[in-house]
């Protein structure tokens, strides 16, 4: 080679350029995905959607409601990897609605859900204060703060397992031979119950009231919950800074998922089968003042045999469900 051609020189430069190391990227480790783990995606058409890794109760994966193209909704197991559009949200912080309202003299007091510290650190504003007559909520903070603070929305995903449940009635009669207490138990209608565990989304999950205790049940009757429930996930969305309270939830919001359950579950009720194979319980208790007094005497153990009989009857006739890690 007596001279250096432009073509050869350019080829060398191109090769050198193509082989230079521009960047080394270390990809994040693929986290181990646990049961019930929620992944989120967004499209303009459907908005935010959740994809939930299958979680099982004993051997059955939970289902979630999916609406098909024909408009019909059916329950699809998580093993089929359905996508679930998120539709129910609550506001926390500046755009929040009060959880409860009360009065203190002439002043209306409002209780708001507390902004979690983590999101307050990220810049989510505080709930408004109720001023004056309470008709006009006023947002706290300076104008400067309002220009930079963020909004927060959230929704909850809840797991349910239907099971048998009973309701009971208590009647007190007063024939001449003595006072008779009759306790009848019957099944709650379970015709709409589902075999599989299932998920629901709600703007705000409120745990159910516990079943009536034996004392209350024996006095007033009872209707036990026909399902066991477990709060699985809370999904938060944080807005860009300085947006208005009515800003729609779109791809500019950042999602954060807080899981409350990480493992598959088992479920059981305290009794199985059909316990209602006994006659209604009838107790003869002595006359005493007031309708409830004889029952109270029984429950307090004044009549030990009757108390034992009543307690056994109630424990055999009432259902309580429970989840545990499996």
């Amino acid at each position, binding site marked *: 080679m007596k001279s250096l051609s432009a073509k050869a020189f350019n080829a060398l430069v191109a090769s050198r350029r193509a082989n230079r*190391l521009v960047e080394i990227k270390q990809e994040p480790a693929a986290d181990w995905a646990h049961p019930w783990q929620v992944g989120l995606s967004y499209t303009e058409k459907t908005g935010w959607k959740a994809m939930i890794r299958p979680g099982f109760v004993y051997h059955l994966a939970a289902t979630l409601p999916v609406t098909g193209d024909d408009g019909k909704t059916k329950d699809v197991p998580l093993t089929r990897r359905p996508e679930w559009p998120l539709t129910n949200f609550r506001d926390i912080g500046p755009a929040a609605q009060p959880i409860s309202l009360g009065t203190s003299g002439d002043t209306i007091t409002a209780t708001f859900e507390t902004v979690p510290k983590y999101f307050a650190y990220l810049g989510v504003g505080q709930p408004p204060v109720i001023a004056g007559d309470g008709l006009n909520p006023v947002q706290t903070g300076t104008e400067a703060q309002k220009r930079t603070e963020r909004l927060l929305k959230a929704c909850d995903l809840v797991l349910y397992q239907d099971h048998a449940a009973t309701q009971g009635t208590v009647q007190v009669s007063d024939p001449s031979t003595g006072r008779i207490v009759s306790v009848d138990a019957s099944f709650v209608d379970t015709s709409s119950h589902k*075999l599989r565990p299932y998920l629901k989304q709600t703007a705000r999950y409120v745990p159910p009231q516990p079943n009536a205790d034996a004392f209350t049940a024996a006095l007033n009757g009872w209707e036990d919950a026909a399902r066991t429930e477990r709060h699985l996930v809370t999904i938060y969305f944080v807005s860009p800074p300085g947006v208005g309270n009515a800003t729609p939830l779109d791809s500019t919001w950042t999602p954060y998922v807080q899981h409350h359950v990480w493992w598959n579950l088992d479920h059981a009720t305290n009794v199985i089968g059909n316990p209602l194979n006994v006659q209604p319980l009838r107790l003869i208790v002595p006359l005493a003042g007031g309708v409830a007094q004889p029952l109270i005497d029984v429950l307090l153990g004044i009549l030990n045999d009757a108390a034992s009989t009543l307690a056994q009857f109630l424990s055999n006739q009432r259902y309580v469900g429970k989840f545990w890690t499996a």
Partner: protein
Amino acid sequence: MGFAGLFTAPKAKRGDSIAQAYEQFRREEEAWRIHFNGQQRQWRTPHGVIINVDSPGATFLHPWLCNLGPDNTVLIRQGRINLQPARIDGVTLDGKGADGAAAEIPTFQIPKEAKPNKDLESFVCAQVEIDLKTGKMVEVEKSPVTIVHLASPDSIYRDGGSLAKNQYGIRPLACVVWSDEKTIDRLEQIAMFDYTHEFKPSGTKNGRGRHFFWV
């Protein structure tokens, strides 16, 4: 390894031939190229190379970890119930025979005639055998914990625990997800821990006892 051997082109001096210097430079340039060694991914462009290095994945090697193999076989990591290891044909899942001697690690064969339930699911399960007189697991010699395949463990499972009409308690390990009635798509893991098991006999005549499992 030092750098000296990598740079063989002599330094250019005033008066050297450009063409000769170019040829030496070209040869050395070949040695500078980035070669793929199979440990990372390269994104090659005319303007350079971007290397993507994967961090080690978070692996959870838990008991009962099930992997679907060829011909509908399932390789199952060792798991225990009441400290008893599960066995297939008398061999523990980590490859120990009845006498404790090393043996080939067994795989579980989903039966050729197996079919899924109406939801196109079936289940690989651990089965515990108990003595109904004592409620305790049968002797070790009888392999109290084995692996079975069931289309559906029990239709009234939701009343709690693992129900059994007989001496067998069932613990689902993995859900077999089928594409259709003949084709297995994949496994979804259910069990991730060793278990404690207890049998609760029925309190009524002809009633059904319950097998409970917990971690």
